[in-house]
């Protein structure tokens, strides 16, 4: 019997959290991500200025006491725009991931559980999707539905779908071979129940790790699309569109580019470190 009988009920979540607590880098990354989330939630309260209000008396001003990160080409406060842009960027990190996970898990589960020709057909379609470049999908969607943030996020989510489908299928295949799935079958559990209750929760770790990495990629992708004018439309701020505007003033007003570039960098690094930490903490072989 284990020596920890008298302790509060242990859960896998608790174990993972304990594992995470032993990695200072991961904790720091989690704190950074949490800080960005708080900034996004309380953006109107934190931002010193209205991010959309232009001031033609203070165009492209360098950082000062009043405008900590300077102003842009129409005199808007860069700090306020970065703060409000956090909302868009975090959404750009989360929504494509939700789209990808939501679509890929059922498909991967069906492919992995059923096997045979169902698996073969689904996987060939997935392979075909892998061959379509992400930017082309994004541009095509923008062309058909108009350039807008939601379409950009949809494109990012669809582009990462095949990777998630493959991952979900692999996880389903691995979990299906577990003894407890066989045991569930032996107590007469229905296929639906086996798939949803016994397989799905145990497929979560690799998907969670991939989701955190993908969130970082998606934020970059949103910035790229907004930079190309396919994402967030002016005047609403997003880090990518701010960079887009800043490129024309790189020499005269470098602060316009430095601030959004830096926050993209910090958030993406934090998400990647968090993903690595999650991977280590969720690695069942280490327990």
């Amino acid at each position, binding site marked *: *019997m*284990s020596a*920890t*009988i008298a302790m509060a*009920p*242990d*859960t*896998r979540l608790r174990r993972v959290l304990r594992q995470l607590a032993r990695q200072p880098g991961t904790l720091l990354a989690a704190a950074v991500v949490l800080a960005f989330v708080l900034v996004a939630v309380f953006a109107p309260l934190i931002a010193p200025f209205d991010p959309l209000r232009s001031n033609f008396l203070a165009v492209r001003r360098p950082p000062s006491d009043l405008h900590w990160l300077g102003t842009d080409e129409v005199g808007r406060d860069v700090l306020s725009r970065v703060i409000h842009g956090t909302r868009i960027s975090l959404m750009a990190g989360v929504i494509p991931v939700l789209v990808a996970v939501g679509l890929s898990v059922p498909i991967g589960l069906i492919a992995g559980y059923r096997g045979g020709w169902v698996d073969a057909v689904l996987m060939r379609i997935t392979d075909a999707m892998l061959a379509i470049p992400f930017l082309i999908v994004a541009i095509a969607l923008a062309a058909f539905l108009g350039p807008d943030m939601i379409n950009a996020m949809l494109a990012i989510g669809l582009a990462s779908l095949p990777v998630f489908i493959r991952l979900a299928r692999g996880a389903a295949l691995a979990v299906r071979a*577990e*003894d*407890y799935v*066989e*045991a*569930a*079958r*032996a*107590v*007469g*559990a*229905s296929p639906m*129940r086996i798939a949803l*209750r*016994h397989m799905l*929760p*145990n497929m979560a770790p690799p998907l969670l790790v991939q989701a955190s990495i993908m969130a970082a990629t998606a934020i970059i992708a949103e910035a790229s699309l907004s930079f190309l004018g396919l994402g967030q439309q002016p005047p609403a701020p997003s880090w990518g569109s701010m960079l887009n505007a800043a490129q024309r003033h790189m020499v005269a007003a470098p602060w316009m580019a430095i601030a959004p570039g830096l926050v993209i960098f910090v958030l993406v690094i934090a998400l990647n470190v968090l993903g690595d930490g999650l991977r280590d903490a969720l690695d*069942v072989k280490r*327990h």
Partner: protein
Amino acid sequence: MSVDTTPALLQVEGLAVEFATRDGVVPAISHASFTLRPGGCLGLVGESGSGKSVTALAIMGLLAKPAARITAGRILLDGVDLLALPPEEMRALRGGAVAMIFQEPMSSLNPAFTVGDQIAEAVRAHARVGAREARARAIELLRQVRIPGAERRFDEYPHRLSGGMRQRVMIAMALAGNPRLLIADEPTTALDVTVQAQIVELLRAIQAEHGTAILLISHNLGLVASLADEIAVMYAGRLVEQGPAARILGHPEHPYTVGLLGAVPRAAPGDAPLTGIEGMVPDLRSPPPGCVFGPRCPFCVATCRAAEPALRGMGAGHASACLRAPLDALA
């Protein structure tokens, strides 16, 4: 085979199972027949790869399709052929009338749910009861398998339990549907010796209290000797000897059984030295001509290689598939 006249609970007739592999078709079981009476315990004995577990999975309807194929035979439970049942009815039977416990208690529980949840799920798979009732029944089952502090244990995750405790939980799950037949596939192999004895004791109690018949699958003759009243010995997918446990253990009439018994360690001083069985289990894709045990048998003669011997009655419900039985005259 048996002199007992009560109708059999489980009757396996001429079962044959093949596996399609990359290297061709492997006949895993060839025409195995045996019966198990209600409340009895049949020990299915043999070394790894002899077809014991395949037999169990065939009864449960859990053979991995399409690789495994049942090519002949019937499996009758209370006279109903399980092989002819539609999948839905077979599923209702699994965990209901027929339950199974596995060799690996460490990995047979879902790590994502509490043990109580898993037992309650097994309860609800076979009875229309609410969550509260299922919980009460699960706690009662935990008590039945002698888990101390059942209410507390209900909410614990599998990784907090020892191997013996997990096997008890597996047994509780198996009992959830009030099975008439419990298939125990190497139930103690993964456990410590002291825990093995407790599990054996538990199985014996379940058999006595609930009248559950047990099909005990093991390579461990000591375990089988302590539980089974009938024994069937499998070798290379064939039943080579079967009969009452006392007869098989005390007076084996197949050289393979003699070899198995010679390989069981004993503790008494002055016992005969441990012996092994020479050679290897034959490649089932190209079995040796005649008796499959022939190449490893000390008594093998020319006639043994001519044709495969069938089971032959040796009296008192005992049957052996050895042409040279009775063996007394040979040794």
